[in-house]
């Protein structure tokens, strides 16, 4: 009984699959002058900075010295550019949508690089934090709303009226559309964070079990190769999710901007 209790305690306090998402101070300054502000570099800030650093270095180096014919590195960058450009052109507007291209590009790279950094063992998945993704999604939807009001004035509310709806149903439909418009805030951020979080937790739990299996005997070591194969397969799946979620986030952002520009 005692051992069981110890095991449970051990599991709870030491080996929770959520410990990998804990934020820790790396460098912290207490500033009593500025109202006791804690100015600190945490591990999430460290990894976000590292992602920005990688982005800068990759873009700086993979230019193939500005030659017209690219090598494989610059072609990878060009195809990334072409992919995002086609997203912007198709989702927003071929003419008016182009000014949002740098933002969409930066958003995609930011999410993708942070997803990929999270895939490296012992590192930190910044995009699994709901605060981060909700901050992004709320800002995007709020910005799109401001854009819509700026462009259309009070006519922007016609976004809430579906085309050709009977007058009797109008109050109900407007309410539903309004709720769905508000739900965009949540759904956009929740989708990204929940996907990354669930993937990392799944991998961590499976890896913990597999480690316990493989260290408990020579037969079990070979038996443990089967779940190990599953873990590797899931890692590949997570790699795909890292790309797909970044793309989905960007496509939906483009769709919201388009709604604000064109009102359906």
């Amino acid at each position, binding site marked *: 009984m005692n051992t069981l209790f110890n095991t449970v305690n*051990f599991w709870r306090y*030491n*080996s929770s699959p959520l*410990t990998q998402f804990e934020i*820790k101070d*790396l460098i912290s300054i207490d500033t009593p002058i500025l109202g006791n502000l804690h100015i600190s570099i945490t*591990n999430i800030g*460290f990894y976000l900075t*590292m992602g920005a650093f*990688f982005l800068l*270095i*990759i873009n*700086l*180096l*993979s*230019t*193939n*010295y500005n*030659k017209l014919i690219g*090598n*494989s*590195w610059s072609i990878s960058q060009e195809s990334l550019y072409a992919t995002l450009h086609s997203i912007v052109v198709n989702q927003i507007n071929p003419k008016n949508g182009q000014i949002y291209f740098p933002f969409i590009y930066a958003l995609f790279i930011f999410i993708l690089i942070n997803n990929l*950094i999270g895939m*490296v*063992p*012992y*590192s*930190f998945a910044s995009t699994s934090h709901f605060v981060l993704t909700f901050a992004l999604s709320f800002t995007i939807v709020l910005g799109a709303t401001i854009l819509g009001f700026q462009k259309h004035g009070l006519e922007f509310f016609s976004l809430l009226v579906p085309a050709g709806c009977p007058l009797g149903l109008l109050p109900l439909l407007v309410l539903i559309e309004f709720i769905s418009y508000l739900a965009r805030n949540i759904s956009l951020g929740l989708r990204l964070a929940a996907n990354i979080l669930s993937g990392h937790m799944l991998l961590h739990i499976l890896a*913990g079990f597999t*480690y316990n299996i493989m*260290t408990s005997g020579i037969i079990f070591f070979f038996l443990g190769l089967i779940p190990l194969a599953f873990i590797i397969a899931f890692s590949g799946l997570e790699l795909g999710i890292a790309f797909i979620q970044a793309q989905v986030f960007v496509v939906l952002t483009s769709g919201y901007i388009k709604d604000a520009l064109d009102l359906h």
Partner: protein
Amino acid sequence: MSFVTRRALSTLIPPKVASPKAIGANPDAVRMQRVVNFYSKLPRGSAPEVKPTGLLGRYQAKYFGKNPSAAPIVHAILLVLITGYAQNYYFHLRHHKNNAH
């Protein structure tokens, strides 16, 4: 000559296709002249070698230049791995070295 006879004659006489004058009056000639003009002004020979300078320049010349390789991806993963392990070790792993989980 009436219109009808002219039309009849023109169908009888084959059009002049293969004459040196017709080729010389090619509307593409002006374009070709411009293309030739442009390319004749370009510097000749193989492109000058860019001498890599600095740490980043030498890294670029080694992995991003003539024969690009995927090694920078491995380097990035290793960098993240090492810094991540160092943080994990400092905060967490050293406290239960013989008590693995």
